[in-house]
């Protein structure tokens, strides 16, 4: 009996030892490694950052300091030693003017079933269960930084050198950028304070900034929010762009929306877009299936328009070279309306000013409704096949009115005829013209 009991104890002990020895295989390496380089104040730093949260700080020392915090679990003791030795001896390519840091210190990394196999740059292989790194980078304020990053959260101080960012699935929170910024980003969220000129290529990215210099952007499925921006050159596809104010804008876009409170000159080529601007100087439009909504504008020129809607509260001058299925609604037109070639358009001008110079429309299947002040004298000329005129004859002196078959030639004067009085001239085919006096 005694022998049996001893045997049992012995077995339990053996099992315990074996399981403990298995468990003891798993080791955690938690350590911070650091590198320090003396550099010039305007050093060029290339930084490759992968799956590593990064904090970039600037200082007035001519030194780059990089700290890498590593937490690796589930390592075999020998693997832990391999990794530790490797990182302790890791060095980056440096010279006084150029430093290249790459935190992707492996050739191959493969993760399956919570187990990661890592082949280090020196060819050695290790296995682990959890791999987490984060970095802290201190650079001179004038550093020209090229940052290529993936799957990371990045915080960045004000930086005054040139900045070149290539981000993929990152979150970047940056301060001021005192020099030009070149940015390429996909699936990222980016916030800046103030930036100088920026050239960007965005894909499914949200970007926000206080003020920007000149902006040149190729963008898709992105959102951009900014207070003040200088000149804007946008090539856009399915974006949302919101600005407080802009200088001149070139907007070549599909399925995008552009919203601003104030803009100067705009040149737009749009397809299925929406533009909403409160104050706008002049705009040139080439568009299809788009909506334009402005409060106050100077001159609006449409070189080509198909199925667009244009809406103004106050507009000085509207000039349309070619338009089909357009809808134009203007609360008050101050100076002039000119349509060279219109097809099935609808014009609704609620009011015209006493300074109206004229309305000249050539339409087919169009509907024109114009409100004219009672006190305003004007000269009306119409040459329309299948006309539909709705004009208050009272006070209008008819000079010519010929209706042959369905062709109408009409000329009349409202009020007293004087030289350079506003001329309303409507030509075309199957046009409905209504003039309301108010």
């Amino acid at each position, binding site marked *: 009996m005694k022998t*049996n009991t001893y045997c049992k104890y012995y077995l339990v002990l*053996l099992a315990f030892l074996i399981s403990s020895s*298995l468990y003891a295989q798993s080791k955690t390496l938690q350590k911070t490694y650091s590198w320090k380089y003396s550099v010039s104040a305007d050093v060029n730093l290339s930084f490759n950052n992968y*799956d590593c949260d990064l904090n970039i700080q600037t200082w007035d020392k001519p030194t780059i300091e990089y700290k890498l915090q590593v937490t690796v679990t589930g390592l075999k003791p020998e693997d832990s030693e391999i990794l530790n030795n490797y990182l302790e001896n890791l060095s980056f390519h440096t010279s006084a003017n150029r430093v290249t840091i790459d935190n992707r210190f492996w050739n191959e*990394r493969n993760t399956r079933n*919570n187990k990661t196999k890592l082949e280090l740059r020196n060819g050695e292989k290790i*296995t682990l269960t959890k791999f987490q790194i984060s970095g802290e980078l201190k650079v001179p304020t004038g550093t020209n930084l090229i940052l290529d990053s993936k799957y990371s959260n990045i915080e960045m101080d004000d930086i005054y050198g040139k900045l070149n960012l290539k981000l993929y699935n990152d979150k970047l929170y940056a301060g001021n950028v005192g020099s030009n910024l070149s940015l390429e980003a996909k699936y990222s969220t980016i916030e800046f304070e103030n930036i100088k000129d920026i050239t960007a290529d965005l894909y*499914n990215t949200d970007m926000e900034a206080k003020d920007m210099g000149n902006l040149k952007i190729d963008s898709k*499925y992105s959102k951009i929010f900014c207070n003040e921006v200088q000149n804007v050159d946008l090539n856009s*596809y399915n974006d949302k762009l919101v600005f407080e104010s802009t200088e001149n804008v070139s907007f070549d876009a599909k399925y995008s929306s552009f919203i601003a409170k104030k803009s100067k000159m705009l040149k737009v080529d749009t397809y299925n877009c929406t533009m909403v601007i409160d104050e706008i100087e002049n705009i040139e439009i080439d568009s299809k299936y788009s909506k334009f909504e402005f409060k106050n504008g100077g001159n609006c020129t449409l070189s080509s328009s198909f199925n667009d809607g244009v809406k103004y509260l106050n507009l000085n001058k509207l000039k349309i070279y070619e338009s089909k299925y357009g809808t134009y609604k203007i609360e008050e037109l101050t100076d002039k309306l000119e349509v060279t070639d219109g097809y099935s358009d609808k014009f609704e001008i609620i009011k015209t000013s006493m300074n109206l110079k004229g309305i000249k429309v050539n339409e087919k299947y169009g509907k024109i409704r114009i409100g004219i002040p009672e006190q305003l004298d004007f000269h009306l000329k119409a040459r329309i096949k299948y006309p539909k005129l709705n004009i208050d004859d009272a006070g209008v002196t008819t000079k010519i009115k010929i209706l042959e078959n369905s062709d109408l030639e009409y000329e009349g004067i409202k009020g007293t005829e004087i030289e350079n009085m506003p001329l309303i001239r409507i030509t075309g085919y199957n046009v409905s013209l209504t003039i309301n006096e108010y």
Partner: protein
Amino acid sequence: MISELEKYLKENRENLDTDKPDQLAIWEGIRAELDENKKLSGNNHRRFLFNWNVAAAFILILGLAYIISNLSRNLPAENTITLSSLDKSLGQREKEYQSYIQVTKQELGSNEFSNDPVIYEIQTEIMRLDTLYNQSINDLNEIGYNERIIQTIFSIYEQKIFLLKLMILETKKKKSHENKYLL
């Protein structure tokens, strides 16, 4: 007293010794006792063997686990990772997106590239999404489970559905609107 009693017993031994032992019964008793001892000893032996067997199996299992664990460290990794291999519910969600895309593609009909620049651009965008999807899967292979990559993959599916629907809309627009009036 004792010597007298001893003397008496010696003299009358034969008269006194009348009962004879039942030898058969004694031998049966001894045999039965021997059998019982034999049975008990067999049981102990079996129990002892059983314990050793359990112990051996236990050691064997642990040893095998150790060997397999060591071997698996050096086994080449599978080529592809899927969302369902990470999490069943993710795999289910992916399946739903895929079947929705399949239905939308069927609604769309033709797979051929369009001559219309707007539709062609959408088709190119969809192809680009395939590249981005492959890139995300590669990253998933490298990093393992990562919320951002998974979000990107689903965002790609949603974008694809959006573009396919846009393509349907544009095709209808072209057929029903522009052609009707422009031809």
